[in-house]
């Protein structure tokens, strides 16, 4: 045994060394032989000529020997392997039905697993394709209550951070949307802001043009107005035009020059220099730090803590009291993100589905193998050892698995991008750019094929190769081999049922927990709402009163349109689940910690009716109050609880400094505005920082307090399909102001989908699909086994029928041997589900032990009863195997 193993190993090494048949070595050896001989002949006194000829003659043909040795060395294993594979391929061709079913089954398992692996790989395993990503950490702060918060740094402080001893380099980042104008329609662009060293820090090698560097300044620390396009945005918005570099685009109505295009995998739509000079109190900012190689995370944390404590002394208003510095590897952020768990659960489900497909193919192979017992016995009778038969059968399952993997990987390659297109962009980060069947994914697929061939082939191979020649040719022995066979079948069926139950329980639980998320009260009604944004032409309506009137005219005109129930207006804020940003506020008699600053929305009073946000206490301001820009506010329930716990929020006063005066040429503060608001009402919470997080404190003030250069209209229809109203809305706008364009139009439901609902629905769909597939496979597997046993007992059943047995009696007889397997499978499956449930409990994935699965299993059983009763005889089961 060991001898053979060692020899195989040596041959394998020789093969890997590129010397497939040891040809080089044997040639060298023979050459050395000849040289020795010639030398001896010379020593014996021959002339060189004679010595060489004599040696050659003596030794015999060189080429022939090389060939002979090659035959011995290489072919012994390689040749018989290719022979087995060849034979397997032919046997698959000659029984196409079985092969097609098996290959398709495996393709489903391998394809889904590979597709999900490509997602997991791109999103969770290897999402950052830049240098030193493993040493790069996110820098953030934790308040004394443990709430995370961004780090706000000045340009000077960033410089100090970059010089810290544990730090190789650091970059300040921010992210929010900018409006890209200058094309046909204004467009929302997800913008990543980086300090000027950012692109260099990330190692971005532009596919076009260049990146921005620290030289790109306008002097005085203000960065140049330049922009790098992300690869995906370049392809979609600029159709991959090669002459984009040098073009000017309008971002938030400011001209920026396109200087380059980033390669795939850096996210966002555009990359813009972060202006470190501007007031950081408006925007939160993050820091990314690349640690020096070998730096310990806790060492880095303590050094950065000291540094930040110093910064806090310089600018205490930007650091919460008693803060702690938190450093976390980039990948941790990914793995903690809301999309990670659904992805991992889906991948696990796919793996389970793969196991089910393997077991199914095992069952099918075994059933088919029964029809091949004669062939296998003949092979044994003419000298095949068991090992040799196992090898042949394994070669067959390898061929099936490779074909399945080929089809599966092709399916994943073709289907993954298409499936992702169903999702709103950005449901999973970066996937549009980086998900494809890459080298590692391909390797994974091939690995799966090998694993699959073992999983699906080993059990049938071991069972079928059992020595039973004698049994084959003598009727009395057939029963013995049948018993073996039956046992293997029963175990496999039980395994299949168990895994299917586990998969169903898992997907059921996943589906239920996701449904729970989908059923979480939203606090508003997203159905039948059209959301339309309109921007003012640059430099128009520069007077507050004129602009306020114009906006109100637009709103009123839209509201008067037939089929419109209500029309509300919002400045810059948009609609749930993601809207606005936090503003600094001051409340008399208390300090507001940075993490509690509310989101301030500027809306018209009809906004609440349009979105059906319930007013819980007090009132909403009147239209007249709105027109006068009265200093009133409505707060959300969450804000009321956070700011005035146990007290009545109505009548409280709150100061929003940024609403006191116009901060730029684009916004117009109401004359005499001082930023002071009196709370007049409390409304319900709506999601405003995404679907997975509890709503942040928020307040609403009349939009007239500070008018922007664009407005978002939320239009509730009387039941009509919202987008069908778009044309009418446009015409109404046109009637008020010729040339007024709609910048963006979508439904509130779309906004919700883009905010993550679509992703959750997709996962629900995926998991349900897996469950159904597993169920179908279980039915196929059981069906083949039942049919097989029915076919074996056809004569017996015929006699029983002739004697007056009823069909159901026959069905019971046919199923009885399997009933135990199914029962055992159910018990094991439920037990496994309970264990998995305990493991998953801390992830709150839902309950895996559910009577539903039992009902499903019962259905499977019932189906087979019907199949058996109808006397279906399936593919290629030959009841008269043997003589």
């Amino acid at each position, binding site marked *: 045994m060991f001898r053979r193993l060692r*020899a195989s190993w040596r041959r394998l090494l020789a093969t890997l060394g590129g010397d497939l048949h040891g040809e080089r070595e044997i040639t060298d050896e023979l050459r050395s032989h000849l040289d020795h001989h010639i030398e001896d002949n010379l020593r014996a006194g021959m002339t060189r000529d004679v010595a060489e000829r004599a040696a050659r003659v003596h030794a015999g043909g060189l080429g022939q020997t090389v060939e002979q040795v090659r035959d011995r060395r290489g072919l012994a294993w390689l040749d018989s392997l290719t022979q087995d594979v060849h034979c397997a391929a032919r046997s698959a061709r000659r029984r196409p039905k079985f092969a097609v079913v098996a290959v398709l089954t495996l393709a489903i398992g391998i394809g889904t697993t590979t597709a999900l692996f490509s997602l997991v790989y791109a999103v969770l395993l290897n999402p950052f394709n830049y240098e030193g990503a493993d040493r790069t950490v996110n820098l953030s702060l934790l308040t004394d209550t443990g709430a995370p918060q961004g780090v706000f740094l000045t340009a000077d402080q960033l410089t100090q951070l970059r010089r810290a001893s544990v730090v190789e380099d650091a970059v300040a980042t921010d992210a929010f949307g900018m409006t890209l104008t200058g094309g046909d329609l204004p467009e929302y662009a997800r913008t990543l802001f980086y300090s000027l060293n950012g692109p260099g820090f990330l190692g971005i090698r532009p596919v076009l043009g260049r990146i921005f560097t620290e030289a790109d300044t306008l002097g005085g620390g203000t960065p140049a107005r330049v922009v790098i396009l992300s690869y995906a945005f370049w392809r979609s918005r600029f159709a991959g035009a090669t002459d984009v570099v040098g073009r000017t685009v309008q971002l938030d109505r400011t001209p920026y020059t396109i200087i380059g295009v980033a390669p795939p995998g850096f996210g966002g739509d555009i990359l813009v220099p972060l202006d470190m000079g501007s007031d950081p109190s408006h925007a939160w900012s993050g820091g990314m730090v690349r640690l020096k190689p070998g730096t310990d995370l806790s060492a880095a944390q303590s050094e950065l803590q000291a540094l930040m404590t110093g910064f806090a002394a310089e600018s205490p208003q930007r650091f919460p009291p008693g803060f702690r510095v938190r450093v976390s590897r980039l990948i941790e952020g990914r793995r903690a993100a809301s999309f990670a768990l659904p992805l991992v659960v889906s991948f696990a489900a796919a793996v389970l589905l793969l196991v089910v497909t393997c077991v199914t193919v095992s069952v099918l192979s075994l059933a088919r193998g029964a029809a091949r017992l004669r062939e296998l016995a003949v092979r044994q009778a003419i000298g095949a050892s068991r090992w040799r038969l196992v090898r042949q059968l394994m070669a067959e399952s390898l061929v099936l698995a490779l074909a399945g993997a080929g089809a599966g990987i092709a399916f994943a390659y073709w289907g993954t991008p298409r499936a992702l297109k169903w999702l709103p962009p950005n449901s999973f980060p970066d996937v549009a750019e980086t998900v494809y069947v890459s080298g590692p994914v391909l390797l994974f697929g091939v690995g799966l094929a090998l694993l699959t061939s073992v999983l699906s082939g080993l059990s049938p191979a071991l069972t079928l190769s059992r020595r039973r020649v004698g049994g084959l040719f003598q009727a009395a022995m057939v029963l013995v081999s049948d018993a073996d066979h039956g046992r293997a079948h029963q175990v496999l069926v039980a395994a299949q049922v168990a895994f299917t139950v586990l998969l169903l329980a898992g997907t059921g639980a996943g589906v239920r927990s996701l449904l729970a998320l989908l059923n979480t009260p939203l606090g508003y009604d997203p159905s039948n709402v059209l959301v339309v944004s309109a921007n003012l032409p640059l430099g128009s309506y520069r007077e507050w009163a004129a602009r306020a009137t114009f906006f109100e005219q637009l709103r009123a005109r839209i509201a008067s349109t037939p089929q419109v129930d209500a029309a509300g207006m919002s400045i810059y804020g948009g609609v749930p689940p993601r809207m606005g940003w936090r503003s600094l506020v001051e409340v008399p008699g208390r300090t507001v910690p940075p993490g509690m600053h509310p989101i301030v929305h500027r809306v018209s009073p009809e906004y609440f009716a349009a979105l059906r946000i319930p007013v819980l206490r007090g009132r909403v301001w009147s239209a007249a109050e709105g027109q006068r820009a009265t200093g009133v506010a409505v707060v959300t329930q969450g804000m009321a609880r956070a700011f005035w716990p146990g007290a009545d929020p109505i009548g409280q006063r709150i100061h929003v400094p940024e609403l006191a005066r116009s901060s730029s040429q684009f916004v117009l503060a109401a004359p005499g505005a001082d930023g002071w608001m009196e709370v007049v009402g409390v409304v319900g919470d709506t999601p405003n920082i995404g679907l997975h997080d509890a709503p942040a404190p928020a307040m609403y003030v009349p939009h007239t307090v500070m008018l922007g250069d664009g407005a978002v209209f939320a239009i509730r229809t009387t039941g009509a399909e919202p987008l069908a109203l778009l044309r009418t809305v446009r015409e109404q706008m046109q009637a008020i102001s010729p040339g007024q364009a709609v910048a963006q139009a979508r439904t509130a439901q779309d906004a919700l989908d883009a905010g993550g609902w679509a992703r959750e629905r997709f996962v629900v769909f995926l998991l349900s699909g897996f469950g159904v597939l597993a169920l179908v496979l279980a039915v196929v597997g059981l069906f083949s086994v039942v049919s097989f046993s029915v076919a074996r007992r056809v004569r017996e059943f015929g006699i029983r029928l002739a004697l007056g047995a009823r069909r159901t009696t026959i069905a019971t007889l046919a199923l009885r041997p399997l009933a135990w397997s199914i029962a055992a499978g159910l018990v094991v499956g439920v037990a496994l589900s309970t264990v998995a449930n305990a493991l998953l409990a801390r992830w709150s994935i839902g309950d895996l032990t559910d009577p539903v699965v039992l009902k499903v299993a019962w259905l499977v059983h019932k189906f087979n009863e019907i199949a058996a009763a109808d006397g279906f005889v399936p593919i290629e089961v030959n009841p008269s195997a043997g003589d």
Partner: protein
Amino acid sequence: MSKQDIWQGTLALMVLKTIELMGPQHGYGIARRIEQTSGHQLLVNYGTLYPALLKLEQEGYLTSYWDTSDNNRRAKYYKLTRTGKRRIEKATAEWEQATEILARFLSPGEA
């Protein structure tokens, strides 16, 4: 059994025995030694020797390594393994038994 098999079997034993007596040896040395021992009645050419050596190596009776020979040439040396030694003992016994049986046939007078 075909003639070639018999010759191969016998040759294998000769090769093993030669290496046992001489210690690690290269193919040429083995060939010369067998020819000498047979009183030059046997001619060992590549075609018989090297397949036999390879077979013995594959079966684990020999291991090989490259080294420099007495006259400073690179050569592949063959060395007996423990299994190889056992094989010689067994084969020798079998051979003796076989020749003894054969001898009884060839000189029936003593039976």
